[in-house]
C-alpha cells in the first residue's frame, strides 16, 4: 500500500485477518496477565512465556510492518503532525493539562504493540551510581531501595536483549564488566569539528550507546541510513518492542491488541483477580490470572490504578500510600545551535554518535546531573523544506541550498527533582472514547533543574563559539521542554507509606501485582530511561517467575 494517507484504514482493516475476525477473548487459566505491550511489558512477557501461560493486553493496534514506509512518508510530509505517524490522538488519547507547564502527552507516546519505542530515538544509557542514592550523595531527592550493583547484571542483559551498539571509551560511565553487544557507530563528520573545539576547552567527548544495529543483529537489519529514526525506522535497525512481542508469541504468549484495560479487580485478600478490558466490538471481557504486571507507561499506569478504585482502595488501587500519580517527572531539554561558514553534513542519519557526561557527577544540592549531546541532525532536512514553501524549480533549489548545509547544534538532558505536586490525576469531567475519566497532568519543574539548564547552555554556547559558530538559538529555562520520558508516578520505596511498589517493583498493597515502568523511578537522573526500564522489567520477570514457583 503506498501513500502516507493509505495507512488510515489500519485500525479497522487490521481487525479482519485471513481467518476471519480476530479472537480477543480472554485466555483461560492464564498464569500472568501483562497490561501494555511496550518494551516493559514485552520484555516481561518474553521472559515468562517459555514456562508460563502469558497474555498481554494492549490498548492500541498491532501495526502492519508493511506500512512503515508510508509512516515514514508521514514523518516527512508537512500535512502530518508527529502524533499522526502512529495514529495517536483523538478521543482515545484525550487528556487534560492543569499545571504550570503544558505537557504535550500525545507527542510523548505511542499506543499499540511495540509501545512508544516505535517512535523513540533509541539512545540507551545506564544511570550513574549516584542516581540511585540522590538523597545520600547529593542531598536532594530520594534514595532508591535498589542500587547500581543490583541492576548491573540486568543492565548487561538488557543491552543484549535490545541490541546496543556502544564502546567502553566513556570515562564517566558507571562500571561495566563486558563490552556492548555491538561495536559503536563511528563518530560523524560534525563530531570531528566539535572534537577540536572541545579539546581546546578541555571538554571530553565519547561515544554513546545506541539501541540500533551497527551490524546485523539477531536477524534484524543493520542501520541503512533512512534518517527518520524518530518517529519511524523502516528497516527495523532501531530496536522497538515488537521484537520481544514476537518472541513472546513464538514461545506461546497471547497478545491481544485494541484491548484497553479499564479496570483492575481484586478480592478480599489483596490479590488482584482480573483485568477488565474492552474490545472494538463494544464488548467487555475479564482476563483472570495468577499474577499481573502493569506496564502501561508512566501516565496510563497511575491512571489505571486510579480508575480501579474500590471500597477497599477508595483512593485508587495499590494507593494505600496516597502516592499513585504523584512525583511526575521528565527530563528537561537544554540546547543551543547555529551555523558555521563551512559544511557540516547534517541529517544523513537521525541519531547522534557523541556525547559528554563529564559534568554529570558534579551534581549536588544546587546542580542537577546533566549530559550533553552533539547532534548529527542540526537544522532543516532539505526534503521537508522542499514540501513547505511557495516556490519550486530553480527558486526552490536556491532556497534549499541556502537553508541546508552549515548548521550545528547541541542538546542535553537535565534531571528534575521529584515533587508530589507534579502529578497525574483523573480529570473531573472529561472522559475518553469509552467514558473513562482522562488523565490530568499537572507538570511543574524545580529551580535546581532550571538553573542547571542555564549551566548546560553556558557550556554549549562556549563550545559552539569555540567552533566559530554564529549561535542562533538557545533552548534555555524559558524554552525548555520535556524529553518524553514519564517517570515517578508509582515510586519505589521500602516503606509502604512512602511508595507504591517495593524494591522488587511489586505493589505494597497487592500481593500478586508488579509494575514494570519508569513510573517506579524515585528520582530520574538525566539519562534516557528505557535501558533502566528494560533492566527492571527483566528483574520483574525473574521475581514473578520465583513467586509463581513458590506459589504453586
Amino acid at each position, binding site marked *: 500500500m*503506498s501513500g502516507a*494517507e*493509505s495507512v488510515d484504514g489500519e485500525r479497522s482493516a487490521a481487525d479482519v485477518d485471513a481467518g476471519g475476525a480476530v479472537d480477543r477473548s480472554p485466555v483461560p487459566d492464564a498464569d500472568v496477565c501483562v497490561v501494555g505491550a511496550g518494551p516493559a511489558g514485552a520484555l516481561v512477557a518474553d521472559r515468562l512465556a517459555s514456562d508460563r501461560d502469558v497474555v498481554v493486553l494492549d490498548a492500541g493496534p498491532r501495526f502492519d510492518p508493511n506500512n512503515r514506509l508510508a509512516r515514514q512518508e508521514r514523518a516527512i510530509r508537512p500535512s502530518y503532525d508527529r502524533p499522526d505517524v502512529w495514529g495517536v490522538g483523538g478521543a482515545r488519547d484525550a487528556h487534560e493539562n492543569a499545571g504550570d507547564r503544558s505537557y504535550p502527552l500525545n507527542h510523548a507516546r505511542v499506543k499499540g504493540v511495540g509501545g512508544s519505542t516505535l517512535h523513540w530515538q533509541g539512545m540507551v544509557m545506564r544511570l550513574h551510581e549516584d542516581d540511585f542514592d540522590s538523597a545520600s550523595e547529593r542531598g536532594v531527592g530520594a534514595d532508591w531501595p535498589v542500587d547500581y550493583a543490583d541492576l548491573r547484571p540486568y543492565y548487561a542483559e538488557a543491552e543484549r536483549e535490545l541490541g546496543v551498539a556502544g564502546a567502553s571509551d566513556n570515562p564517566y560511565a558507571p562500571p561495566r564488566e563486558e563490552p556492548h553487544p555491538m561495536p559503536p557507530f563511528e563518530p*560523524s563528520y560534525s563530531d570531528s569539528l566539535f572534537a577540536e573545539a572541545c579539546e581546546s576547552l578541555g571538554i571530553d567527548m565519547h561515544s554513546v550507546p545506541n539501541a540500533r544495529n551497527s551490524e546485523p543483529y539477531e536477524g534484524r537489519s543493520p542501520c*541503512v541510513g533512512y534518517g527518520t529514526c524518530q518517529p519511524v525506522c*523502516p528497516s527495523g535497525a532501531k530496536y522497538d518492542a515488537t521484537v520481544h512481542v514476537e518472541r513472546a508469541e513464538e514461545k506461546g504468549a497471547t497478545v491481544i491488541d485494541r484491548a484497553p484495560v479499564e479496570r483492575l479487580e481484586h478480592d478480599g485478600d489483596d490479590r488482584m483477580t482480573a483485568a477488565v478490558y474492552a474490545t472494538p466490538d463494544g464488548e467487555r471481557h475479564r482476563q483472570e490470572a495468577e499474577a499481573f504486571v502493569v506496564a502501561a507507561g508512566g501516565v496510563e499506569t497511575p491512571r489505571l490504578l486510579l480508575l480501579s478504585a474500590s471500597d477497599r482502595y477508595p483512593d485508587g488501587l495499590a494507593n494505600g500510600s496516597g502516592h499513585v500519580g504523584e512525583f511526575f517527572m521528565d527530563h528537561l531539554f537544554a540546547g543551543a545551535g547555529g551555523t558555521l561558514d563551512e559544511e557540516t553534513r547534517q541529517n544523513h542519519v537521525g541519531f547522534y554518535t557523541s556525547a559528554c557526561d563529564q559534568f554529570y557527577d558534579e551534581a549536588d544540592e544546587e546542580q542537577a546531573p546533566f549530559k550533553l549531546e552533539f547532534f548529527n541532525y542540526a537544522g532543516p532536512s532539505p*526534503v521537508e523544506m*522542499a514540501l513547505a514553501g511557495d516556490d519550486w524549480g530553480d527558486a*526552490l533549489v536556491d532556497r534549499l541550498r541556502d537553508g541546508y548545509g552549515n548548521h550545528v547544534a547541541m542538546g542535553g538532558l537535565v534531571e528534575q527533582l521529584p515533587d508530589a505536586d507534579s502529578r497525574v490525576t483523573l480529570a473531573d469531567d472529561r472522559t475518553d472514547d469509552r467514558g473513562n475519566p482522562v488523565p490530568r497532568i499537572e507538570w511543574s519543574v524545580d529551580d535546581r533543574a532550571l538553573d542547571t539548564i542555564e549551566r548546560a547552555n553556558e557550556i554549549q554556547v562556549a563550545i559552539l563559539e569555540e567552533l566559530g559558530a554564529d549561535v542562533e538559538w538557545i533552548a534555555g529555562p524559558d524554552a525548555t521542554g520535556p524529553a518524553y520520558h514519564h517517570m515517578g508516578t508509582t515510586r519505589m520505596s521500602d516503606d509502604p507509606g512512602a511508595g507504591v511498589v517495593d524494591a522488587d517493583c511489586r505493589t505494597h498493597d497487592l500481593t500478586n501485582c508488579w509494575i514494570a515502568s519508569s513510573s517506579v523511578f524515585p528520582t530520574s537522573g538525566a539519562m534516557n530511561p528505557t535501558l533502566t526500564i528494560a533492566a527492571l522489567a527483566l528483574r520483574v520477570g525473574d521475581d514473578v517467575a520465583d513467586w509463581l514457583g513458590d506459589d504453586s
Partner: protein
Amino acid sequence: MELTRRDAAAALAAIGATGGVALGVRRTADRRGGGPGGEQADPAWDGEGLPGDEAVRTAMTAVAEAVYPGAVSGVDAFVGAFLDGRLDGSPHCEGIRAAVAEVESAARSWYDAPVADLPPADRDELLRELGADTAEEDPDGTTAERVRYYVVNELLLALYSSPTGGELVGIENPQGHAGGAESYQRGPR
C-alpha cells in the same frame, strides 16, 4: 545533473512502493523501443472523467518539468519509473489520478490544451493559478491543497528524497533514502 533509475528506485523505496521498481524496469525498456515521442499524448484520454495511467504519467512529467530545477535531466524516465511504483491501485494512487484530472481540466479550460502541450511558463502559471504554490498540502483539502499534495509535493518528495535530488542541495543521503550508515561520517567533497 542526470536523474537515474537508481534515483527513482530510491525515491520509491523512501515512500513505500518498492513493489513497482521491477515493473519500472520493464516499462522503461518498452518505452525505449517506442522512442521518446511515444508519450507526448495519451490518445485514449480526452479530458473527460478520470485519466488512465498513461495520461497521468504524461501530465505528471509535464508538471515535473515545471517544478524541478533546470539543472536536472532525465525527468521523463525518472517520473515514469517513479509512477510505476506509485500507480498501484491504492487510495493514494486514486488521489493522484483525481488531482491530475483537476490540473488537466484547468489547463484545458484556461489554456485550451492539455498540460503537456503548454509551454513551460504556462505550466508554471497554471499551477500558480490553481493556488498550488501557496497552498499547504492536504490530501482531503481544497483543489489547491490536493494538487499540492498529490501532484506538486508528490514530485518534489520523489526528487528530494533521491540521491541525485539530494546532491543538488549537498546531501547525497537525504532523509527517506536508505543511503547507508557511512555518508554521515564523510566530510565535504
